[in-house]
């Protein structure tokens, strides 16, 4: 069997084919990824323009259009978006989506028998500030069952989609919560090969972010792989 296709290094990046996650079996490419066209490494993406035109909508406890507030444990999720050198990225666009506190998404295809919350859409957008920082207010999402294997449950998570300035910065990932016993049973979480890399998907409880009487704080930094994910092999761009 050929080595499974994957992007980037073999510690942080999941292989496309990960049979424990059943849906990969017919969707994973099986041929090796080719080196990219040289211009892709230098390509500026749509992120800056998208960030400039978006209306930030970062309080998910009260953005569902009604007068009420979402049910659940109120949380603050904040962090810094960094480039591959560890420098903060201002004006990065972050879009998130998540299940409500009962583990149910506002989505036609979500058949989980758990209640919807009329005051929770589970959708937010935010642009990082001059220091690369973002901040959402939301409720802690519930775990929910899925059909991957018998008695399969997704650990609580928030989906994040991030645009940095470069085309190759593009990242879609999931943020998990500390101390969740479902993580070690979850093939999506475990598709990331290196345990230290998996830990980078878990937010940290941050008491300095917690607002007294209001909401618990979590910190989750996002480091984009960017152009440097592909070794430059001595080309003149020095990436």
């Amino acid at each position: 069997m050929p080595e499974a296709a994957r992007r980037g290094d073999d510690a942080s990046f999941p292989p496309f084919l990960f049979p424990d996650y059943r849906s990969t079996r017919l969707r994973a490419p099986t041929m090796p990824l080719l080196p990219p066209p040289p211009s892709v490494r230098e390509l500026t993406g749509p992120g800056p323009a998208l960030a400039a035109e978006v209306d930030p909508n970062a309080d998910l406890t009260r953005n569902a259009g009604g007068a009420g507030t979402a049910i659940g444990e109120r949380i603050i999720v904040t962090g810094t978006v960094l480039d591959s050198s560890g420098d903060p990225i201002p004006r990065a666009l972050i879009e998130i989506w998540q299940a409500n506190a009962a583990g149910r998404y506002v989505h036609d295809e979500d058949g989980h028998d758990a209640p919807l919350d009329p005051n929770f859409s589970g959708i937010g957008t935010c642009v990082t500030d001059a220091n690369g920082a973002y901040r959402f207010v939301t409720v802690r999402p519930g775990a929910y069952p899925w059909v991957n294997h018998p008695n399969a449950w997704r650990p609580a998570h928030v989906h994040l989609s991030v645009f940095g300035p470069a085309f190759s910065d593009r990242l879609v990932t999931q943020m998990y919560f500390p101390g969740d016993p479902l993580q070690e049973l979850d093939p999506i979480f475990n598709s990331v090969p290196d345990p230290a890399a998996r830990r980078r998907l878990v937010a940290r409880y941050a008491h300095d972010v917690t607002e007294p009487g209001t909401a618990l704080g979590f910190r989750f930094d996002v480091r984009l792989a960017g152009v440097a994910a592909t070794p430059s092999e001595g080309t003149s761009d020095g990436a």
Partner: protein
Amino acid sequence: MAREPTPPQTVGPFFHGSLLREPRTRLAPDGVAGERIRIEGRVLDGEGRPVTDALVEVWQAEVAARDADRAGDDGGSGGSAGFGRSGTDGVGRYGFESVRPVRSPAPDGSSEAPHLDVLVFARGLLDRLATRIYFEDDDPVAIDPFLRAVPEERRATLIATRDEEGRYLHDLVLQGASETVFFDA
């Protein structure tokens, strides 16, 4: 290599309300000059079945540059021209409208054939997939050194064909004998 990048995870099946909250399938604002084109195709799995919950993002960088250049005369759109996002429908189909791409310079001084840069996301894809769409009537292999470096038998997976109605057709095949060329970017 980036030190300790944040690992990617699948987009899953429930992204629509967030990532497709507004339509973004027109890449070129009205003021951008050029032949108006439509590009469409299906996302297919390893058994040739439609992937009905994929997300296709396209980036036509030269349109963004041309739109920004219009700022001097009629204002430009001031926005994200050149970027498109399409979900796939019940038969796995995505689609975009734009202006016909033009050649762009390559870092080594050669030219790149007209193309779109493409990212594919879906439930069951643990990471995004990067590819390109070239256009058959540009004779892209003759222009583009990158395309010539792709094994000859796989080049067609990067090149859209034109149907009798003038639409460009391009399927994105995730797995199998006719698997689309994806690259490490």
